[in-house]
């Protein structure tokens, strides 16, 4: 059975384009151009993966993620945007999205990302990897959970390679580890990003308006 995908984007043309690209491999169960319709339909249709735009009127993608995750934690989100605002992207991830890719992504890579998110893995585009490295940069003493507030050097290695434009497969080969291990590292970084209460994260995100 093919993966059920739902699309949320306020640009009709973009919806049509993505639908055309993904239709062959996935079951596009529906799409919405506004937040309220999206939340309602996703709750009813229960797709496996929702591709959601970061920037939309009435609260944007983050409102969709927050509105669904609370009632249906099994629905997985992949943020898709032209937006470069680190603040918004990080906010989406922290709300529960499992990855972020830019709209300039190649169709094959987008399909790959959807499969990955459906499998429960995290999807980091080069840009998101850069954001995370930047956000976690610098030594940082922590009062509650140092594990969550620091990236391991292996995780940093993985993120750096992703930021340099390498696919997971190539990252695995360069580091002499399995793809599964790369996925584990990335998922662990995602978890840290979602759970850390590192105060620098918020400050960094608001300071870094554009990338």
């Amino acid at each position, binding site marked *: 059975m093919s993966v059920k995908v739902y699309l949320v984007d306020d640009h009709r043309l973009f919806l049509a384009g993505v639908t055309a690209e993904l239709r062959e491999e996935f079951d596009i169960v529906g799409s919405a151009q506004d937040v309220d319709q999206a939340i309602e339909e996703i709750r009813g249709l229960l797709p496996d993966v929702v591709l959601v735009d970061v920037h939309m009127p009435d609260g944007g993608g983050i409102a969709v993620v927050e509105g669904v995750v609370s009632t249906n934690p099994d629905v997985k989100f992949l943020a898709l945007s032209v937006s470069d605002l680190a603040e918004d992207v990080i906010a989406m991830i922290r709300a529960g999205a499992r990855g972020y890719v830019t709209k300039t992504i190649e169709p094959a890579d987008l399909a790959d990302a959807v499969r990955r998110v459906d499998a429960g893995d995290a999807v980091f585009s*080069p840009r998101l*990897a850069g954001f995370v490295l*930047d956000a976690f940069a610098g030594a940082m003493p922590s009062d509650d959970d140092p594990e969550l507030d620091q990236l391991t050097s292996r995780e940093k290695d993985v993120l*750096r390679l992703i930021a*340099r*434009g390498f696919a997971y497969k190539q990252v695995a080969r360069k580091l002499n580890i399995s793809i599964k291990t790369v996925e584990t590292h990335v998922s662990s970084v995602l978890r840290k990003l979602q759970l850390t209460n590192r105060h620098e994260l918020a400050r960094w995100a608001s300071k870094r308006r*554009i990338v």
Partner: protein
Amino acid sequence: MVAGVAGGLADSLGVSDGFVRAAFVTLTMTAGLGVLLYLGFWLAALDRVADAESEEVSGHQAIGLLLGFSGLMVLLFTLGLWPSNGLVVTVWAISFGTAFLTDRNIPSPLASLLDPSMEGPGRMRTLLGVGLLIGGLAVFAANVGDIFNAGPVILAVALTGVGILVAFGPWVTRLAKDLGSERRERIRQEERAEMAAHLHDSVLQTLALIQRSDDPGRMSMLARHQEGELRDWLFGSTPLEGVDLMSTALRQAAARIEESHQVPIDVVSVGDHPLDEATLPIVGAASEAMVNAAKHSGADRISLYFEAQETRLEVFITDQGKGFDESSSPEGLGIRNSIRKRMENAGGSASIESIPGEGTEVVLTLAVS
């Protein structure tokens, strides 16, 4: 007026500045005391905030101020510092008269006189002011001889000058303020025109080009380039302001090469470093690496990753194109030499790794303090 002392004092006392000025002028006439006081207040008020809110004066306060002023006058009279009744009364009446008329709370004294709909204290004040002025002039006329005997002619000239200043000062200030707001409006319009011009030269031109183009690759390239440029202009440092950060310089170099070679370049940066003579060669070497990748790799996109760490800068230019055999390709050799030489001259290093069929990665490293 001269140093804003009267206005400032008026603000803190809660009365119209015209009255304070009038008091100063009168005191000056009677022993030069006004000038001394003015200087004193000026020195004391040097660091005072200019735009204090004028407070409503209370009845007690007004009476207190009036008594204080009268007391001073009586003191000066008993001390014998009194040129002549005629002079003092003239100056007092004229200066206070103009104070009533130039009160900033009244938009135009003439209008309030002629317009019967203007009522209340404003009209009262105007009538009072005009009365005082006429009275002052009358006293002056009656005592002409007296005054000229009492003081030198210079005094009279000075008096006239001060009177004119006091009377027209606020009007001139108001005019200057109007000119100021007109200037602000003009600047706003200029900014708008500049924005329109910018959008016309950039976004509108690009949109026109996209409409005329039927090559999807070219269209998306145009859109991409325009997006980056607009973003820079809206949020980042504009090219006009000069490039002063490594990340900005690399981004701009990538945008230029992307446009001229029609290959998308993804730029990701972590941390940042000022762009100076020491770091400029990295941008040059990175540009060369990007151009080479765009020209020879055949890759459909190029990645540039820049990371500024505390002690070193690193730039990775990666493509997944056809690569080259490092030992045999003359092309590869050329790249190596030019990029490597640049970095070595700058005190850094460059390494190039290429695998035929898989792509090329150029790594530039420079130690910084």
